[in-house]
């Protein structure tokens, strides 16, 4: 089955008495023509790459622009030495989200989940929970398949690209995927997973993508924190029996609709929001200083013939 509706995945799951993760796993086997073992093995490598990245964090690193780095470490020192307001687990989640966002900005290896800019959300909730509760790795892999089902539906019905749908499509999607995984890991039903996805996505609806100087740094790194915290809140609500009044697929469709209607200034172009503040503009100017003047590339420059005939696709 196409992973294009949470409602349909849920119905299939109930009809076949098959958990959601298994539906996603079987879909991957059919789509990539691989065995169950090969699919699971790739998921295991993906999970371990996430854990390795989290463990390799260093607070010493700085991004190419110098704007980002050290905050994950700052947060860790804080909760190690102080009673944090939200308790040590949430403080650790926040530190983990910052750390992974910084790993990404500092050109370290990460797992796009679903994008590089939002790569901190899922590991920030999953890894601390896995360690705290001693959850078996197999179950973590199942939770990751759940996130794939959720992410596929969001990508199909709406978008997971900031350029297409704003930050709600990146951190919003990551948060929804994380909320579904958390709900699954704490024994939530398929319905509860759907409510967690709906609630988390609703809470971030409309979030714009406004990266300062066009870089995946400010405000992206800290937005990973809100994506992670929102996922915890949505999962706890769903597990408590709180339901989304708007069905999950309709929420996803609404996110897509909001994304399409977002002015282009708020879709990764760095022309609006925080990127357009005086400080944001000053950062951009500083980054541009050393650029050479642009020229128009002519046919002579290219040293190759430019043909005007477009490529014709005979089979698509």
């Amino acid at each position, binding site marked *: 089955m196409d992973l294009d509706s949470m409602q349909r995945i849920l119905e299939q799951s109930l009809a076949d008495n098959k958990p959601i993760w298994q539906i996603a796993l079987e879909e991957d086997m059919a789509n990539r023509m691989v065995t169950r073992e090969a699919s699971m093995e790739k998921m295991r490598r993906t999970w371990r790459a996430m854990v390795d990245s989290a463990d390799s964090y260093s607070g010493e690193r700085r991004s190419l622009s110098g704007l980002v780095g050290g905050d994950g470490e700052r947060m860790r020192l804080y909760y190690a030495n102080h009673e944090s307001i939200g308790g040590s687990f949430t403080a650790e989640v926040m530190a983990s989200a910052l750390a992974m966002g910084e790993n*990404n900005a500092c050109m370290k290896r990460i*797992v796009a989940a679903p994008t590089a800019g939002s790569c901190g959300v899922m590991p920030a909730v999953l890894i601390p929970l896995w360690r705290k509760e001693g959850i078996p790795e197999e179950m973590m892999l199942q939770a990751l398949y759940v996130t794939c089902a959720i992410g596929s539906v969001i990508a199909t019905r709406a978008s997971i690209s900031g*350029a297409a749908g704003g930050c709600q499509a990146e951190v919003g999607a990551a948060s929804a995927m994380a909320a579904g995984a958390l709900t699954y890991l704490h024994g939530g039903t398929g319905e509860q997973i759907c409510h967690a996805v709906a609630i988390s996505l609703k809470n971030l609806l409309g979030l714009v993508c406004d990266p300062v100087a066009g870089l995946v740094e400010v405000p992206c790194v800290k937005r990973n924190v809100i994506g992670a915290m929102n996922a915890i809140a949505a999962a706890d609500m769903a597990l408590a029996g709180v339901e989304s009044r708007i069905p999950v697929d309709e929420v996803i469709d609404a996110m897509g609709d909001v994304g399409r209607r977002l002015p282009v200034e708020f879709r990764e172009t760095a022309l609006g929001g925080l990127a357009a503040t005086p400080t944001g503009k000053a950062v951009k100017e500083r980054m541009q200083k050393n650029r050479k003047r642009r020229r128009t590339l002519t046919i002579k420059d290219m040293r190759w013939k430019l043909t005007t005939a477009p*490529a014709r696709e005979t089979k698509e």
Partner: protein
Amino acid sequence: MIDIFDILGPVMVGPSSSHTAGAVRIGAMGRTLLGGTPVKARLHLHGSFADTGVGHGTDKALIAGLLGMKPDDLEIPNSFAHAEQQGLEFTFDEVDLKNAHPNTVAMELTASDGHTLSLQACSIGGGRIRVTMLDGVAVSFTGAYNTLIIHNKDDRGSIADVTTTLSRARVNIAYMSLSRSARGGNAIMIIETDEKIPPVVLQFLKEFAGIIHLTYYEKEDE
């Protein structure tokens, strides 16, 4: 159909799937199509690649790809130093390409034996790429499949020769496109296949009279 590992993945070096991971893949595509590490590379950055490329490490990523690195190679940030060690000279400049995708680069590559390749490609999101121009001919392929690129004489029978051979080798064609510069001139056949094409089949294809040059790109392993 969406690959779930495009949702959860790729495993890559940051900060941007389009500006970093995609750029590595474009460089790697150029290297494969050239047939090895270039000794000279002129890279022309267009649109957002020019505007935000340095901050995203796009320049380092492109060079890393030309050197054969994968998108998750931790040495990507140090690719300029590797290029120097491996004797790859490169230049970057910024250009305006008409009607090009915002994340586009045009590359002129020279191999150690002196042959050259020109290539224009764009990064279309999530680390996926599309080659749009090859040696002056408009093309369209992504590297998501095993890809056969054939420069052939624009004459009858060339396509039938190739597709018949692939069919006999039990290789299924997923997508295929044909382009040419002018009637009877240079033509490029792009064939994307589900199965890998065995070396013996490639060798056989090379011997057809109508085929001038053949390049094969095998998709990245899982």
